[in-house]
C-alpha cells in the first residue's frame, strides 16, 4: 500500500503538463468561455506576444485540444480559435485534479512562533 506522501506525489505527477503551463491554461480557460475567439482577443486578454501565443496554440492544436481556422478578411489574415471537446474534457479534468490536490493538502498553521 502506498503512503500518503506517495499518493500526493503521484497526484501531482498525474497533472496534464500540456494544460498545466500557465499561458496554455489561460488560453484554454478563455476559449472555454466562448464558441469561437479571434487571435487578437486572445492576445489582449492572455497578455501574450503574437509569437508566444502562436507557439502555444500550435502545441494545443497538435494535441487536439483546440481547432484553428485560418481565413482572410479582405487582404488581412484572420485566425480564429475554438476549444475542442477533448480540450474541454482536458481542462475540466485538470481543474478537478487541482481541486482534489488543494483539498488534500494540510492547512498551514498561520500562528507565529
Amino acid at each position, binding site marked *: 500500500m502506498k503512503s500518503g506522501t506517495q499518493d500526493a506525489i503521484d497526484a501531482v505527477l498525474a497533472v496534464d503538463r500540456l494544460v498545466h503551463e500557465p499561458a496554455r*491554461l*489561460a488560453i484554454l*480557460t*478563455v*476559449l*472555454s*468561455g*466562448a*464558441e*469561437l*475567439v*479571434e*487571435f*487578437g*482577443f*486572445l*492576445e*489582449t*486578454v492572455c*497578455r501574450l506576444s503574437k509569437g508566444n501565443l502562436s507557439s502555444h496554440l500550435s502545441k494545443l492544436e497538435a494535441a487536439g485540444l483546440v481547432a484553428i481556422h485560418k481565413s482572410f478578411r479582405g487582404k488581412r489574415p484572420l485566425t*480564429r480559435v475554438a476549444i475542442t471537446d477533448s480540450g474541454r474534457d482536458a481542462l475540466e479534468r485538470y*481543474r478537478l485534479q*487541482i*481541486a482534489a*490536490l*488543494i483539498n488534500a493538502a494540510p492547512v498551514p498553521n498561520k500562528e507565529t512562533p
Partner: protein
Amino acid sequence: MQTDTDHLSRLADNTSRYARYSRSAGGLSLVIGGILCLATFVVGATVELTPALRYALAGAPLLWLLSKELLRAFYYQRAGAARERLSDKQRRMHLWMVAYLAVMSLLIIGGVVWAAGARAWQWPGIGYVAIVAAMPLVAARWFWSVGDFLVGVLLVCQAAVVIAGNHYPWYWILIAALYAVIAIGTGWREHRDYLRLRDELGLPGAGQNRGANA
C-alpha cells in the same frame, strides 16, 4: 492555489460576458432600437406620411441592424471577436422564436395573396410581402434575445405596413412605448456591464469610465 483557480473561473466568466456582445447582448444597439421603435410608431400614427417619410420609416429596421453590426464590430468587440457559446435552452428559444415568426409570416402572406390576388405581386403589395417574408430570416440572423425579438418584430412589422401605404393606429404607440422601455432599460444595463467588463479585462479604453462606475 485556490486564488489561481478563482482567477481562472473569473477569466472564463469574463470571456463569456464579452462573447455575449456577439449575439444576445445588444447594449447601446438595444437602446437605439427602443428609441427607433417608439419614434416610428409615434410618427406613423401622428404625422401625414409623405412617400419620402414612408421610405424613411420603412428603413428603420435596416438602420437598427446597421447600428447593431457597427457597435458590435467597432465598439463592443473591437479587441477581437469572440462568438457566444449558446446553451441548449438559448438555442431552443431562438429556434422556437424563428419557427413562430416563419409560421406567422406564411399565414400573413397567404392571407394577403388570398385577399389581394394579383395586386399582392405589384408595388406596394410586393414590398409588404417581401418585408414580411424577410422577417424570419432577419430573426434567424440577428434576434438572439427577448429584447431583440420585441423591438425587431415591431420595427419590421411597421416597416411592412408603412411601405404598403398604411400605418398602425395610435394605440399601438402604447405597446411600442412598453417595448421601448424594456429594450432601453435592458440595453443600458448591458452597456454598463460592458464598461465594467472592459476595465476587468484591460481592453482598449479601460479606465475611462472608472469614475462613472464607482
